[in-house]
C-alpha cells in the first residue's frame, strides 16, 4: 500500500522541505501520493505533479485550508487516510502542529522526527536532544510519521507527470481563526537549507552587534543563526534559533560565534559537515565538537575574519 505525504506550501509554491519529505516518504514505499490542500493552490498541485517520485497528487482547494489551521487540515487528512498505510509530513512547525491531531483521530501512535527509514515499520529517531538515537518499530496498522527534513536529500524536482485528482473539502469546526503571520523577510538563504550558517550567541552582547555576524554571512552567502540565549535576550528574532526546540541545520559549514555550546544548541547543529567555533572561553563545550576552534575575542576576530575574506580572490557560492 502507499504513502500519503502532506505538502507544505504557501498556496503559490512548495516549501523546500517538502522535497526532502517526499524523498523520505519514497524510502517507506515507492507509491507516494501527495495531498496539496490550500486556497487557490493549483500551481502548487502542478508543481508537485512534476516531481518524478510522486505517483499521484490529491488537490483540495478551499478557503478553509488557506492558512493550514490544524483544526481544519487534520479532518481532511483523516478523511483521505483510508487507502494509505503511512501518513507523512516534515517535522517542522507545520508538520508538528497538525500530525498529532491526525494520529489521535486515527488512534495511532505517531513516530516523530525520523532521521532514517529502516523498513516500512522501523525507523531511527533522535531522543534526548540527539544525545541518543532510538530505533523504533511501529506496531500500528496505520502509521503517522514526521521526518526530519535535513536528514534526507531533496527529491528531484522535474521530469514527472503524476495525475492530479481533485478531492472535496470537509466540514471544519470553526473554533479557531487565523489572524496574521509576521514572516521575517530576508535576502539571505533560508536557515534550514543554507550551505553555510553563521550563528551568534550571548557573546554578541547586543542586537546591534549582530551586524558583525550578518556582515560575514553576507560575504559568504550564508544564513544567520542564533543560540536560544541570543533570541531570549532579544538580539534577534525567534526564527533564527538553532537547537533542540528551534531549527536543526546540517550545512557544509557552521560558524558558531560567542556560543558556549549547551547540549540544546548542539542538538541543532552538530551534524554539520565542518564546524568552526570562535569563543574567548577556551573551555567552552563548543570546542569539543568544532573542527576548527579559535580562542579569541569575537569583537576583534570578526572584523579580521571579514577582512581576510575580502582578501580572497574567490568565495564559493
Amino acid at each position: 500500500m502507499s504513502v500519503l505525504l502532506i505538502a507544505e506550501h504557501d498556496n503559490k509554491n512548495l516549501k523546500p522541505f517538502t522535497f526532502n519529505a517526499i524523498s523520505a516518504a519514497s524510502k517507506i514505499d515507492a507509491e507516494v501520493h501527495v495531498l496539496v490542500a490550500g486556497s487557490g493552490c493549483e500551481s502548487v498541485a502542478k508543481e508537485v505533479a512534476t516531481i518524478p517520485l510522486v505517483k499521484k497528487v490529491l488537490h483540495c482547494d478551499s478557503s478553509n485550508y488557506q492558512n493550514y489551521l490544524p483544526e481544519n487540515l487534520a479532518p481532511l487528512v483523516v478523511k483521505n487516510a483510508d487507502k494509505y498505510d503511512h501518513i507523512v509530513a516534515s517535522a517542522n512547525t507545520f508538520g508538528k502542529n497538525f500530525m498529532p491531531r491526525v494520529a489521535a483521530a486515527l488512534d495511532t501512535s505517531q513516530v516523530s522526527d525520523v532521521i532514517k527509514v529502516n523498513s516500512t515499520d522501523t525507523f531511527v529517531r533522535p531522543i534526548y536532544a540527539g544525545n541518543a538515537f532510538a530505533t523504533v518499530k511501529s506496531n500500528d496498522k496505520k502509521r503517522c510519521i514526521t521526518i526530519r527534513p535535513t536528514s534526507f536529500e531533496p527529491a528531484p524536482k522535474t521530469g514527472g507527470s503524476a495525475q492530479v485528482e481533485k478531492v472535496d473539502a470537509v466540514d471544519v469546526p470553526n473554533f479557531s481563526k487565523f489572524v496574521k503571520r509576521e514572516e521575517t523577510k530576508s535576502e539571505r538563504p533560508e536557515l534550514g537549507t543554507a550551505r553555510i550558517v553563521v550563528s551568534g550567541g550571548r557573546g554578541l552582547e547586543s542586537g546591534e552587534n549582530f551586524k558583525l555576524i550578518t556582515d560575514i554571512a553576507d560575504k559568504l552567502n550564508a544564513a544567520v543563526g542564533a543560540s536560544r540565549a541570543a533570541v531570549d535576550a532579544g538580539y534577534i528574532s525567534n526564527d533564527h534559533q538553532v537547537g533542540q526546540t528551534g531549527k536543526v541545520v546540517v550545512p557544509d559549514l557552521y560558524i558558531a560565534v560567542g556560543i558556549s555550546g549547551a547540549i540544546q544548541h548542539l542538538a541543532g547543529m552538530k551534524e554539520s559537515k565542518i564546524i568552526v567555533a570562535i569563543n574567548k572561553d577556551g573551555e567552552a563545550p563548543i570546542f569539543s565538537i568544532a573542527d576548527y576552534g579559535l580562542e579569541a575575542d569575537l569583537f576583534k576576530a570578526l572584523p579580521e575574519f571579514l577582512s581576510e575574506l575580502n582578501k580572497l580572490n574567490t568565495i564559493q557560492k
Partner: protein
Amino acid sequence: MKILVAVKRVIDYNVQIRVKEDGSGVHTDNVKMSTNPPDDNAVEESVKLKESGKVKEVVAVTIGEEKAQETVRKALAVGADRGIHVKADSYIEPLGIAKILKKVVEKEKPDMVFLGKQAIDDDCNQTGQMLAAMLNWPQATFSSKVSLKDKSMEIVREIDEGLETIEVNLPAVVTCDLRLNEPRYASLPNIMKAKKKPIEQMAAKDLGVDIANRVQQLKVEEPPKRKAGIKVANVAELVSKLKNEAKVI
C-alpha cells in the same frame, strides 16, 4: 475560569545523558530529575492568569511513578491550587498520555489545558495536539504570548517563518514555548504551604483507557561521535584552513 496544567518529570536539562551499554535505554539511576522546562512555563502562565483575576483555579496534573509527584508539588509551590497524580509505573506514549488527560479533563471540566510544547526526553511534541483532537478542541502550539478574552484566547505562536497570531475559542489546549514567560522560583514559605495542598491520587490502569504502547523501542545507541578538531592560532590560519583544507569557502 479554570485551568488544568500538565507537568512531566524528566531528566534535568543540564544532565549529559548516558546510553546504557545493552542498548535498552539511558541511565536514570542517581540522575537529577526535574520538571520538563516548557512545563514550567505552562505552570507560570496558568498562575499569572489566576493572578490577573480571570482564572479562579489552577489544577496541576502529572502522570508517572511515585516520584513524579514532585513536579506537582513544585507547581503547587508556585501557585497552583491543587494537584492530581495519575500513577503509572512504566513509560506511556503520548497517545496514551493524551487519553489519560482526556479522562482528567472530562472530570475536572477546565476551560483551558496548558502543557509544555515538547518533553525534552522523548522529544515527541505530540501530547497537547493529541489531547486537543480527542476533546475536539482547538489548539495553540508553540505559544509565546497568550491574551485571554471572555470566550477565546489570542495567541502568538513561534513558527519556522517567524510569528503567527491565531484566535481560538474556549475551551482550548495551549502548548507553551520557553519564551512565553520567565518561570518564578518558589519561596520557602510557599514550599511549606504547598505541602498542605491536596494531591488527588488515581491509577492509570483504573481509568478505562487503552494505554498499551504501540511503538516498540528496539534499541537505543549513542550517536556517532565527532572527531576532535584542532585549535587555530589566528584568523588568517582559520580562513586558510577553511579555504585550502576543508574547501568550504
